[in-house]
């Protein structure tokens, strides 16, 4: 091999540039194709979608209804194994929901009580910062979106999320046990996922784009109005802002600086 150091460094530098500027190279060869898939996703009217969970109006049965509605709309299977569980919205005790708030003299009203948890659609989402392929990103309307066709399954976002809202498809969700999921897929208008990708709550982006409320909000409000309030935090006249104005609310782990946009009236 007749190559001196100078020539080698030249080639190494060029290949490094090609590697780093790979996207630009792709854009040159096939303009627009990379981003085309993203353009199909309709953006919504909001600027900063957020939610208020009124725990004074919530009970176990109602929370189960919300979970059921969400998982039915999004084809989230019951895998029958807590280790592989996929959760978009779920229940967790007060101690686990607000770890910094807990102390040994906390009122029985809260001690051991379940809270409703979902993706906080953070203002400064750590999951998007660590994703090596930008498969998860913050949309202009505030939704932290996830592209399961781009996800390589590295699970970095799961490590980054301080709220544990992300689930990985350890196995194939389409092979979920039939006896636990008799009608899977439950919603033919929403895609099922393949194995090896991460998924999470998308604030029902496909529903709010059509002017509907998220599935959990709809399910909760059918039983108890304003148990879940969804709206644009950027709009001072929206329901969420009114709700935030009327009641004292807390958020999960705000000290981390991720800026969660789900508020709790407790």
């Amino acid at each position, binding site marked *: *091999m007749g*190559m001196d*150091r100078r020539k*080698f460094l030249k080639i*190494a530098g060029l290949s*490094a540039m090609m*590697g*780093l500027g*790979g*996207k630009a190279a*792709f854009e040159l060869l096939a303009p627009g194709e*990379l981003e085309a898939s993203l353009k199909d996703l309709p953006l919504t009217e909001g600027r900063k979608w957020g939610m208020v969970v009124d725990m004074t109006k919530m009970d176990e049965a109602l929370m189960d209804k919300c979970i059921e509605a969400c998982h039915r709309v999004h084809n989230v299977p019951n895998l029958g194994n*807590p*280790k*592989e*569980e996929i959760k978009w919205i779920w229940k967790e005790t007060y101690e686990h929901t607000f770890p910094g708030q807990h102390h040994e003299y906390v009122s029985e009203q809260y001690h051991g009580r379940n809270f409703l948890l979902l993706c906080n659609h953070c203002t400064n989402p750590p999951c998007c*910062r*660590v*994703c*090596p*392929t*930008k*498969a998860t990103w913050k949309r202009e309307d505030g939704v932290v979106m996830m592209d399961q066709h*781009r*996800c*390589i*399954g*590295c*699970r*970095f976002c*799961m*490590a980054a999320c301080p709220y*544990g809202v992300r*689930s*990985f*498809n*350890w*196995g*194939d969700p389409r092979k979920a046990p039939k006896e636990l999921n008799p009608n899977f897929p439950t919603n033919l208008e929403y895609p099922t996922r*393949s*194995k*090896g*990708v*991460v998924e999470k709550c998308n604030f029902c982006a496909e529903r709010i784009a059509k002017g509907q409320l998220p599935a959990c909000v709809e399910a909760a409000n059918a039983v108890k109005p304003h148990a879940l309030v969804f709206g644009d935090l950027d709009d001072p006249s929206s329901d969420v802002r009114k709700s935030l104005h009327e009641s004292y609310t807390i958020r999960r782990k705000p000290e981390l600086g991720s800026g969660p946009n789900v508020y709790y009236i407790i």
Partner: protein
Amino acid sequence: MLDKAIKGSPQYWSWVVFLLALMGVGFGCYLYQWFEGLRITGMSRDVSWGFYIGQLTYFVGVAASGVMVVLPYYIHDYKAFGRITILGEFLAVASIVMCGLFVMVDLGNLPRMLNIMIYPNPSSILFTCSSTSSSAGTSSVRSERASPTRSGSRC
């Protein structure tokens, strides 16, 4: 120097066959994971990274130490270290290869791995890792190529 690898005693060859068989078992296990998904690893929601990533960090350390052993010879021209240079370089290259393989088997979607380069996200540490490890690999290979002329007589 690589011609040394294809000459050896029957003992050597039985060792090679044994290692190849081990690799075959590993590949078979990977095929099982390929069809079943990462669920077979025993990782879960709460333990989302396991031995795969643990091994990656371990071999990064081994590779770095391999390069460190080589440096006195190249940079300070410290001749006594010349004897260990080849060993250090081969160890570093092998470890870097292992690092890359451990990251690959840990991915849920290996065929999409090039998305890291197609849609790069410089704020992701995984991006930094992959670019630094590939450049570390390149530099090890470079010293590999440069060494035979200087140390060929010893091996």
